[in-house]
């Protein structure tokens, strides 16, 4: 059996840990993150990958077995809308390029395949906690923010796919993979609306079928901070009582 490396998730949020598994080949296995990616790290023997604290991108994970054979796979590091894009792409079996984030520059299809655009309509701060602390006379701490965002998801095609497959969009957001991703990455999709809004007339004859649903998502972001992150706390006379 040939060597392979896999992970239950194909995308994770910042600071999230994910487990990579090797199969085939000859154990023991050694894991490594190839340079030039998003900047995550991995335990060489455990296969526990830790996503970088900031930024988005793709890391390539390489596993090497006992006889020097190698196999690679990739994991994307992204924000919550990107993770929802990943869920939709994964569950609908779409290719790279068929799901994109709406930034007022949606990719206009030139073929009859199915396309999905995920955009953020609005987001509301529902909690913001700052937890400063001092360890060994050094200022450390963490700050978390909890948000409720409303995502606008468009499914569209020049062919009949959007008309025929729009229900799969709801099923994707309620899939086992979606549940796994929510658990792993600390977000929660709200109750999915049952109503698709037909916005087919938006693009006229260019895109014949276009439907929209709005989905609520709750998520939190945690940022670890150090003294240097606060300009007002920098200075030679600053002391802390631990």
């Amino acid at each position: 059996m040939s060597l392979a490396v896999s992970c239950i998730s194909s995308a994770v949020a910042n600071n999230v840990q994910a487990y990579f598994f090797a199969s085939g080949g000859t154990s023991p296995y050694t894991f490594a993150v190839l340079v030039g990616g998003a900047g995550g790290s991995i335990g060489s023997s455990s296969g526990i990958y830790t996503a970088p604290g900031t930024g988005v991108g793709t890391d390539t994970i390489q596993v090497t077995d006992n006889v020097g054979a190698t196999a690679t796979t990739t994991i994307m590091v992204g924000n919550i809308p990107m993770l929802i894009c990943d869920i939709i792409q994964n569950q609908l079996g779409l290719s790279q390029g068929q799901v994109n984030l709406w930034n007022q520059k949606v990719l206009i299809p030139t073929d009859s395949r199915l396309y999905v655009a995920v955009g953020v309509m609005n987001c509301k701060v529902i909690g913001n906690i700052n937890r400063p602390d001092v360890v060994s006379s050094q200022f450390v701490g963490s700050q978390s923010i909890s948000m409720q965002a409303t995502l606008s998801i468009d499914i569209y095609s020049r062919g009949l796919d959007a008309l025929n497959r729009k229900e799969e969009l709801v099923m994707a957001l309620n899939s086992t993979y979606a549940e796994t991703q929510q658990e792993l990455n600390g977000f929660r999709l709200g109750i999915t609306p049952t109503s698709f809004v037909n916005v087919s007339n938006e693009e006229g004859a260019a895109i014949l079928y276009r439907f929209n649903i709005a989905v609520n998502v709750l998520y939190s972001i945690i940022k670890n901070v150090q003294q240097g992150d606060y300009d007002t706390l920098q200075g030679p006379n600053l002391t802390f009582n631990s």
Partner: protein
Amino acid sequence: MILWWPPACGGGTGSGNTWPADNQVKLGVTWLENHVPHTGTYVPGFQVQNKSFVPLPDVSGALLDWFQSMAFVVLTKSVVNFQNVETKTQTSFRGIWQPFNAQQLRMKPEGERAWRWFMLHADTSLELFPDDVVIYNSLQYRVMEKNDYLHYGYREYHLVEDFTGSGP
């Protein structure tokens, strides 16, 4: 319509068609329209230049002498990690760049006449599509119209200066 009569044309028959007599020369156009099938074929001894009779020839050879060397930076869009990413590609071709004339501008709806419209005739190595964005001489332009005369050896584009600076 332009007609070149054969030097010895004075009436007669040939290839199944009855040639006009001298007194019919002035009526040659009508005679041709009545006797020449509209299939682009020629009457022996006659050369007729008219769209209704013959197709437009491939004029790429003549146009290449008229065209100038030009270079565009074409902005194309792709999706990487679900995000739209713009990439710039340098492309060289031969073409002619000219502003719209007054009559072309008058045909635009009110509000668009003040835009900076340009017309580009280019060789067939350049293929742009409506809504493509290009950079030419450090200014950004958006393709608004494409007229494909590929069979005749060129393409015509209408572009407008894109002051927004936004990509495709």
